[in-house]
């Protein structure tokens, strides 16, 4: 592999995974915090709150996964190599 392409791929992978996790990380922290707050206020609705949180986290974390896919493909199956 061309050293320039290799270096650019590693840099792109690092930037890709780093930037793509910022938004989901903030959103997941916010959602989990609010859910725990909600459970503390209404313990009788614990199951419903946890269920909604599970659905929200599953969709939020997929944004991280998209970035992760790009980074891993650049590192292990680079189409420009």
């Amino acid at each position: 592999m061309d050293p320039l392409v290799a270096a650019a791929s590693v840099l792109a992978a690092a930037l890709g995974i780093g930037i793509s996790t910022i938004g989901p990380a903030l959103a997941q922290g916010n959602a989990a915090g609010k859910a725990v707050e909600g459970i503390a206020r209404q313990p009788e609705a614990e199951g419903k709150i946890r269920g909604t949180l599970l659905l929200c986290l599953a969709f939020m974390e997929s944004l991280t996964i998209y970035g992760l896919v790009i980074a891993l493909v650049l590192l292990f199956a680079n189409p420009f190599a």
Partner: protein
Amino acid sequence: MELIDISAQPSLASKQANQAEPDISQLSGSMAEYYRLKQGLVMSSLVIAGLLFGPLWWSYSLKVALSYLLGALSGIVYLRLLAKNVEQLGTENPQVGKNQLGVFIGLIIVATQWHQLSVLPIFLGFLTYKVGIIVYVVWTTILPPSTPQG
């Protein structure tokens, strides 16, 4: 405003967090709804993966279909780990982490290094759990599950 000492009354989730797999039929209260949701999501993802395996084998090849199935099963494992994390959130024994992403990272690394597997079917198979979530939510919106009596 009256303050209640909730530490003296540990929640049902914290009691059940130590158990491996609670029996839904014996549970009552709000956490039963959560375990039902978790089981429903896993089942709907499994059914969708099973339904798509045949057409993929017929349309493409067994290699593509097996890659898809591997991705779908990994997605279900990921969903179960995520559900376990959500279950333990805010309990006395918090072990919240990002272990579920390790499943995906390992899967993609194996897919890219082992030439018998294809990356794209594995990735699309992994996303089957999202289709399962959408199908389950639409299904339960149209036909709400009946709550067990007694």
